[in-house]
């Protein structure tokens, strides 16, 4: 056994010390008729066999490297500097547990403290927690904060239908037992004329605990939510903005717009696509709401030698102390992914993140301009966008994507899946990874489609 060090003579000596004669004797409490089932699993592979089998499975996929990808819709192919994974591979980081013993966990603690600081700097907010599972669950947890803030007295949550469909779905699941009503979660109302604020604002009332919008929204559109947030605040409601962190390298922060909570999917910050996870839910808010916030929180302190140090703080919000009265049930979070994003942001810094954001912006706009010159392909919305945009196509998106795939291109997201009125609408994402050549190839194949 390569992972079990005990040898037979050692086991023998230990059984003797315990006072039993065989290891089976330790399982007397297990109901006899169910004890020691024969598991129908394949026999053990050695490491070299397992490595080969996993390589084969991996090779059975076509990746965003094998293909040219214009797929985004909540997960983005960005360049990850080599140094990120070099840090993540340090055994001291990835094989440690939650830093409950601060004296021997200062590495993790300071890294999370810095992550919190970096996320605040990025979003323009005051406090960040140590992470949520992903963007979707971070959105869902924002409802818990708002609900607790109003002590359950406000029971309505308004969400824009232009928020990621899977975030909205997750939210629907989370609120099942909470006695909340969701308003605005009406994808069927989204047409090319949809303007988020106009759709949302009328829904906000004195019973509204929280308003949720996305920035850029699911269609890649960028709105200044300042007026909407003011309107929400006028009704006493809180506002949560789910933001793309790369976009924040360029765009006005939700903090500046007055948001109370800024959450989002941190995957673009140095985390591999990895078929959807593990990713990183980030969660930032104003200091006044910190006691209602879910999740772990690192604070600065000093040790008994007067050295600056860090500890988990305000733990009385959490399940292991407060149990059913906790702000959330979250325990294990996305620590290592938070570290990845901190390293990513440290490496790129002020200049690098802006550079990436601009590259995404310029390339997406070039792609959009080229595509909309093809007869039959038009902009869906007439709104500024960041690095993703919706195109109305002359044929069903499924056909178009199939055709693109034949040319080695991973097409965009079929908006008709979630938005009935956006049948034949294709959501295209462009990042710094897409060369002009690739974009031109996309345009060429799309032009073919329009001719067929």
């Amino acid at each position, binding site marked *: 056994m390569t992972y079990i060090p005990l040898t037979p003579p050692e086991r023998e000596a230990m059984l003797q010390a315990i006072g039993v004669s065989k290891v089976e004797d330790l399982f007397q*409490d297990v109901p006899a008729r169910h004890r*020691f089932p024969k598991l129908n699993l394949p026999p053990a592979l050695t490491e070299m066999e397992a490595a080969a089998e996993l390589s084969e499975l991996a090779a059975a996929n076509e990746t965003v490297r094998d293909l040219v990808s214009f797929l985004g819709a909540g997960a983005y192919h960005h360049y990850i500097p080599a140094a990120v994974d070099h840090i993540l591979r340090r055994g001291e980081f990835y094989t440690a547990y939650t830093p409950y013993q601060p004296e021997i966990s200062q590495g993790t603690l300071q890294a999370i403290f810095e992550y919190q*600081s970096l996320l605040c700097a990025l979003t323009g907010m005051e406090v960040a927690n140590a992470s949520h599972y992903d963007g979707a669950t971070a959105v869902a947890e924002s409802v818990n904060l708002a609900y607790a803030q109003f002590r359950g007295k406000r029971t309505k949550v308004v969400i824009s239908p232009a928020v990621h469909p899977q975030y909205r779905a997750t939210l629907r699941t989370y609120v099942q037992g909470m006695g909340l009503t969701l308003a605005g979660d009406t994808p069927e109302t989204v047409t090319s004329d949809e303007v988020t604020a106009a759709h949302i604002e009328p829904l906000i009332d004195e019973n509204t605990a929280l308003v949720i919008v996305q920035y850029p929204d699911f269609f890649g559109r960028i709105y200044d939510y300042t007026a909407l947030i003011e309107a929400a605040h006028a009704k006493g409601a809180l506002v949560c903005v789910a933001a793309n962190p790369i976009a924040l390298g360029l765009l006005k922060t939700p903090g500046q717009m007055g948001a109370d909570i800024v959450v989002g999917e941190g995957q673009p910050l140095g985390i591999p696509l990895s*078929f959807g*996870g593990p990713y990183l839910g980030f969660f930032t808010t104003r200091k006044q709401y910190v006691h209602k916030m879910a999740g772990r929180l690192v604070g600065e302190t000093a040790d008994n030698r007067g*050295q600056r140090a860090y500890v988990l703080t305000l733990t009385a919000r959490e*399940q292991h102390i407060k149990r059913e009265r906790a702000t959330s049930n979250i325990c*294990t979070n996305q620590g290592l992914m938070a570290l990845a994003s901190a390293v990513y942001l440290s490496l790129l810094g002020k200049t690098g993140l802006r550079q990436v954001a601009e590259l995404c912006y310029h390339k997406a706009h070039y792609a959009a301009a080229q595509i909309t010159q093809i007869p039959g392909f038009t902009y869906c919305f007439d709104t500024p966008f960041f690095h993703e945009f919706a195109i109305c196509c002359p044929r069903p998106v499924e056909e178009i994507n199939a055709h693109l795939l034949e040319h080695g291109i991973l097409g965009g997201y079929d908006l008709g899946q979630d938005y009935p009125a956006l049948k034949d609408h294709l959501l295209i994402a462009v990042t710094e990874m897409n060369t*002009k050549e690739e974009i031109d190839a996309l345009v060429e194949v799309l032009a073919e489609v329009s001719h067929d």
Partner: protein
Amino acid sequence: MTDNLTPKVVEPTIFELSSPGRTGVTFPDPDVPRAPLPESLLRADLPLPELAEVDVIRHYMHLSRFNYSVDGGFYPLGSCTMKYNPKINEDTARLPGFAFTHPLQPVETVQGNLALMFTLQEWLKEISGFAAVSLQPAAGAHGELTGVLMMRAYHRARGDTKRTKMLIPDSAHGTNPASSAMSGLTVMQIPSDARGNVDLEALKAACDETVVGLMLTNPNTLGLFDEHLEEVIKIVHDCGGLVYGDGANLNALLGIVRPGDLGFDLMHFNLHKTFSTPHGGGGPGSGPVGAAAHLADFLPSPLVGVIEEGDGEMPPLYGFMEPKQTIGRVKAFHGHFGMFVRAFTYIAMHGPDGLRAVAENAVLNANYLLARLRHTFHVPYDRICMHEFVAEGKVEGSDVRALDIAKRLMDYGFHPPTNYFPLIVHEALMIEPTETESKQTLDAFAEALIKIAEEAKTQPDLLKEAPHPLPGAGKTPFGRMDEVKAARDLVLCCWLP
């Protein structure tokens, strides 16, 4: 020693290390024409730090060295199953064929991923005895929330809407009541009996037609297998309730018994405990949920299934399917795929015999440590344990606390056990060695604890002032922390707008 000899160990923050004009990575100039930027929507300033790659690497390298880790030593944190994380897992999870796939790709282009997920579902079913498994939940607590919502949905689907009460033993982890509360249920605590089992009388008394079910950790957080487990389950079932298994302690049961066979209705797995995916300094984990047949239709959506059967020549075509009465999705995309690869690798390398050996050796290690320590520390529920046990961190004739013992263990180069949990043991020291530790390590740990118990009587300050600044592998240069200051000052961020 002069002051010269104790230079500050403090590592500056990444913001303090910043020097304007540096960058750790650059990007090419755009190869397309620049588009006009939306002036009114631009941010004024981007107050991120500025560092070269060498600055960043050194900073995180220094920080890493302040951490204790499983790769560095014994980490007997009860309830956390801090087993060794095989290195091959890290490599397979990083294979470009996995790491560079987008979650929304057409299924035809990701058959490798789907085959892996399908197989992992099947394996987890076989290991646990459940009819179906969803891999979506992100961690144990997330699995609990999923499970509780499924229990709720199950009752409602039967038109039974008055069930709002969740029964939870007093030894349960805090996530159990928290998950129930998040699902809008009320929590009723069930006491333990003198042998650490669920108190049957109390359970019976609590069981009525308002019961959603019981959340049961078995082995429980005392490390004990409930001696009346089947009766407990029957009592709950008899009142129409369901039994949820908190699978945190499944490591003790691999190949020993299948929770599904015992009558559990559903359960979450912790891939980051039982199946060796690393804890990552707090996460990510992965908390798949298994369900018996009557609950399978409520699992979160989507599951991976076969959408076109294969034959001798063609492999099957895998795709996503939606369970009929699904509670919906509990997060975006399909779960923590990177963790699935690791857990798959681990199970593949163990096979049925290897998994049973995992449980046997985990239980053997725990009982051996218990045998070595029971004469030094009082073990309130002292019987053959499973993968862990709970001792009282007190020493007769000394006023030291469990915390002091924990901190003193650091001086000996060990990570302390879990403290002050479960709540039903005073000054709890919850010790879970796992199967990946050698007898030599267990002996060294036991001897350290025995020596510390001695010190508690003869030199109690050695414990109360611990940890001491010591050089050497696995030890770090920090002393006890001022937790009050942290909560009072609330410095949560070193950058402020």
